[in-house]
């Protein structure tokens, strides 16, 4: 299924069907009483209860959409569309996960739909960011250790900014998979369904994206680098 065929409401059904662990967890899941009461009120048509939900989750959902879209206006539109879709489909919410998990899934899907609606742009190759090898299979540029802690290490805020900047430099199709798998913690089946690609393609893109990110971080973190 391609992303263009995937509606926001389909995200309501995306519950990690390929993951037996998650399926078992859903069967035994009990929603916290406060959330259960809130969603009951929404399902009865109490819009004030829905406003409470929007208030509680809007900031986090905006951050999720911004990561994927890297454009504040698009992120805001995606979150608004997602909240509206969730409101329309609140009756179908089966309470097998937290409200935040449910909304997260819908926002991720809305953001991906928006990403797709921008149209395909020519993408830079990831190859220059992957390790290169000599004919005998040894690395051309040997790897060295990284300094991540101690006095010489880059401070936390700078390190986070560096990681954000390096992720932003990844080609979009790889960046999206890395964000979905390593940051948004979507499982391989969910990621494949969201992107309309195979699980094998998800795994290949993720491995390449991590290698490329390692290449981009390396000059800043390797032992003995100038800061």
């Amino acid at each position, binding site marked *: 299924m391609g992303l263009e065929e995937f509606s926001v409401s389909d995200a309501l059904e995306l519950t990690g069907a390929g993951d037996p662990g998650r399926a078992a967890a859903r069967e035994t899941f009990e929603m916290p009483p406060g959330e259960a009461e809130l969603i009951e009120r929404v399902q009865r*048509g109490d*819009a004030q209860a829905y406003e409470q939900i929007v208030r509680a989750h809007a*900031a986090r959902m905006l951050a999720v959409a911004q990561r994927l879209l890297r454009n504040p206006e698009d992120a805001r539109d995606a*979150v608004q569309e997602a909240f*509206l879709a969730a409101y329309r489909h609140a009756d179908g919410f089966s309470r097998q996960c937290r409200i935040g998990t449910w909304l997260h899934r819908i926002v991720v899907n809305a953001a991906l739909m928006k990403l797709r609606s921008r149209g395909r742009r020519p993408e830079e190759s990831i190859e220059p960011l992957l390790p290169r090898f000599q004919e005998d299979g040894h*690395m051309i540029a040997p*790897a060295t250790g990284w300094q991540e802690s101690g006095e010489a290490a880059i401070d936390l805020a700078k390190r986070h900014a560096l990681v954000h900047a390096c992720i932003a430099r990844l080609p979009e199709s790889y960046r999206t998979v890395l964000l979905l798998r*390593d940051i948004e913690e979507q499982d391989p089946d969910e990621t494949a369904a969201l992107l309309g690609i195979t699980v094998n393609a998800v795994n290949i893109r993720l491995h390449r994206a*991590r290698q490329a990110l*390692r290449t981009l971080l390396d000059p800043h973190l390797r032992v003995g680098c100038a800061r």
Partner: protein
Amino acid sequence: MTCKDFIEFLDRYLNGALTPTEREEFSRHLVICRDCDHYLANYRATIRLAAEAFADPDAEFPPGVPEDLVRAVTAACRAETPEQSHEIE
């Protein structure tokens, strides 16, 4: 096993998806190849650093509720269900 094979196997190694034979070859290469030992440590650190960099949404957005967004959403919901509009006022 070469460094090229090692890096190809890396994600499967971390997912515990290698066969016993592949795992044995992988471990043997890791003992003799300092570059791949560093590469594995870097690769693991990359995954961890990425997760840490996005762990705090307040670092990406100012803390607090984005009121304009809440207003826009509640207005859109009100438009969807006009008969319940009084509940949002």
